């Protein structure tokens, strides 16, 4: 097989092989454009002016478009490109890219690791080896309108209505609680209360806004319903457990809400920006959303309607308590790099508190609890990020494996179909489990 391909290629015009001559002292970091790269640029500037100068190393960013980023990175790495020495890695693509990366345990010794939240390191570890310095952590919050929930907790008329709706829709009378103590049912009850479909006097049109587009990130958001009820991707026997009772419960949480019109009908095709838009416009009272949204939602210049009224709570609790999916963005080392020595030095420096402090001040969210606490005044959500990551953060079994993205894909496909009413629950779970088994074996 190999011979046929090689001969065909040589039979063409084999000119000199393309080599990207990496000049000694020049390190290239592959990244995608956006707030992360803007923040990272400040870190790199600090490096180039400081330790980089001492070591004679300059680091530059190379940006690949976010559209098709993973496909491009895949093609480049698979072909052994040495155009970049360091690359962006994420939890869910770690398994896919690990064959092309060098582990960085040597560059990031135990003392350095100690500064990072353990689950963040775990989210970039595969087979016991660390493949990336976690620079950004993503965790989920339950966002809610403080003003409205405060009123709910003090207004007896509202509480009566709340109890009546809960009785009618959920079968039992319920009393509103503080969001920090919400179970999934409490959240559903609150969402129903804050929807005009069930409560014509509701101050918001929808009680919540869900993200149900056929997209892997939406599964990451959803799977807290799975894990907080004791579920996981795989059972103890290593076989798919996605068709278990926890998944069933979790899927039904979303379905109940969309059927009751407690979330905009367009939620079927929503992802991050659309959900934000709904909350920002004051149309939804609560929202399950990534931590990155808080900054924008609390900024009076960007969100005049809701700034200052945004409360944060952990995702509602299931039988196993509160849980939140966690994943990290990190910087890894390209195996095919022609400048590993210098690149390794950069990696080692990135794992220091100095580097991560610059990153945090520039807008990033590094999983270093000390730094997060220290910046509470500038970024009020930071302490919560640190806290939630530690207490509730989880990485699903197999979340960093090579089959992670394919599994997320099949879950996104089947579950979004169920939520859109295309297939029923049993079919969705069955096909999801089958699809998962296929991808894992594949």
């Amino acid at each position, binding site marked *: *097989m*190999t011979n*046929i*391909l*090689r001969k*065909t*290629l040589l*039979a*063409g*015009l084999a000119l000199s092989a393309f080599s990207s001559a990496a000049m000694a002292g020049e390190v290239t970091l592959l990244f995608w454009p956006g707030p992360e790269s803007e923040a990272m640029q400040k870190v790199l500037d600090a490096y180039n002016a400081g330790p980089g100068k001492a070591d004679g190393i300059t680091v530059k960013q190379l940006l690949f478009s976010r*559209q098709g980023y*993973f*496909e491009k990175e*895949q093609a480049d*790495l*698979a*072909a052994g490109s040495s155009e970049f020495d360091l690359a962006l890695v994420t939890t869910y693509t770690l398994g*896919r890219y690990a*064959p*092309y990366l060098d582990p960085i345990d040597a560059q990031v010794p135990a003392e350095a690791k100690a500064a990072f939240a353990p689950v963040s390191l775990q989210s970039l570890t595969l087979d016991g080896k660390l493949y990336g310095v976690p620079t950004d952590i993503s965790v989920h919050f339950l966002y809610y309108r403080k003003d409205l929930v405060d009123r709910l907790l003090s207004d007896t008329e509202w509480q009566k209505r709340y109890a009546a709706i809960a009785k009618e829709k959920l079968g039992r009378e319920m009393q509103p609680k503080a969001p920090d103590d919400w179970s999934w049912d409490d959240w559903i009850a609150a969402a129903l209360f804050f929807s005009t479909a069930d409560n014509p006097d509701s101050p918001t049109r929808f009680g919540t806004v869900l993200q*149900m*587009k*056929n*997209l892997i990130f939406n599964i990451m958001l959803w799977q807290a319903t799975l894990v907080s009820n004791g579920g996981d991707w795989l059972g103890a026997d290593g076989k798919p457990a996605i068709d278990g009772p926890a998944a069933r419960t979790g899927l039904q949480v979303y379905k109940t809400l969309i059927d009751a019109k407690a979330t*905009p*009908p*367009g939620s*079927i*095709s929503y992802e991050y*920006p*659309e959900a934000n*838009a*709904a909350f920002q*416009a004051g*149309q939804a009272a609560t929202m399950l959303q990534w931590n990155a949204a808080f900054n924008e939602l609390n900024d009076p210049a960007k969100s005049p309607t809701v700034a200052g009224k945004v409360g944060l709570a952990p995702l509602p609790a299931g039988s196993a308590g509160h849980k939140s999916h966690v994943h990290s963005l990190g910087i890894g080392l390209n195996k095919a790099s022609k400048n590993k020595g210098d690149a390794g030095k950069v990696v080692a420096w990135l794992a220091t508190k100095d580097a991560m402090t610059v990153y945090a001040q520039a807008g990033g969210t590094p999983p270093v609890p000390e730094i997060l606490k220290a910046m509470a005044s500038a970024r009020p959500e930071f302490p919560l990020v640190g806290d939630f990551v530690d207490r509730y953060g989880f990485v699903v079994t197999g979340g960093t494996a090579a089959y992670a*993205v*394919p599994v997320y*894909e099949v879950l996104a*496909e*089947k579950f*979004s*179909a*169920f*939520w*859109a*009413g*295309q*297939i029923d629950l049993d079919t969705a779970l069955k096909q999801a489990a089958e699809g998962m088994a296929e*991808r894992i074996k*594949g």
Partner: protein
Amino acid sequence: MASTAGRRPYEGRWDGLWLLGPLLLFLALLLGFPAVANLVYSLSEVRFTGLWSPRWVGLDNYATVLADPAFWGAVGFSARFAIVVTAAQLLLGFALVLALDPLIAKRRWLMAFLLLPMMVSPALLGVMYRLMLNDFVGVIPQYLQLVGFSGNLLDADWAFTTVAVIEVLQWTPFAFLALLTAYQAIPGELVEAARIDGAGSWAVFRRITLPLMVPALAITGFIRFIDSFRVFDHIYVLTGGGPGTLTQSLSIYIYRTFFQQERIGPAVAASMLLLLASIVVLRLLMAQMLRGSRG
């Protein structure tokens, strides 16, 4: 008037060579390796970690693909999509031609405005539509609500229609242009003669215009059908093939299988199947068209 096979008396001996040669050489050099690679990939199991070392599995990939309901779903979607949008474009294009020909004939520069939609990259167009279709800040739902429509344009009931409408809006100008040319090339004398004989507008249309437009409709339909069968960009950006796999075109299926599921072999095999179908269909069509032009 069609040229016949065989060399003409004064044709140079090497004419065929230097006329066709560069093209053939170019295709061989540039497409040679990729074509062979793809053929090999379609018959192998190959991973991204081993792009140079595929493992022979014979026709397994083809069998996998043919047995995959998602494949047939994608084929079904692409076929339905292509038929619907092509028909719509031909109808709309033709209607616009009939309505606007006198206007355009006098002021040709007006055409530029009708061609503008084609000049936008479909990928970017999809991104902008995300903004326009946004429930809260988008203009399209805003106006639809004014006429009493309150559904969601990307849900299970409307997704197909939405992506189809977007396609029709962007490419109807192509059909309009093609059909307008053919229409304007209809000899005026024919129409004159018919009118002198007392034929009404409808008769003129049915007996003269329509038959003369059929070849143009066929070619335009053919080109647009192939293009819309391959649709990818705007649907991928807007719905990702969803909800579920409701709007998964064949190109999206292949793209997903290739990059996201990393099943290179089956993805290429599916493309080969598509190529096969295209060859057959084109064969039939060309036979028809050649027969027609000889008539």
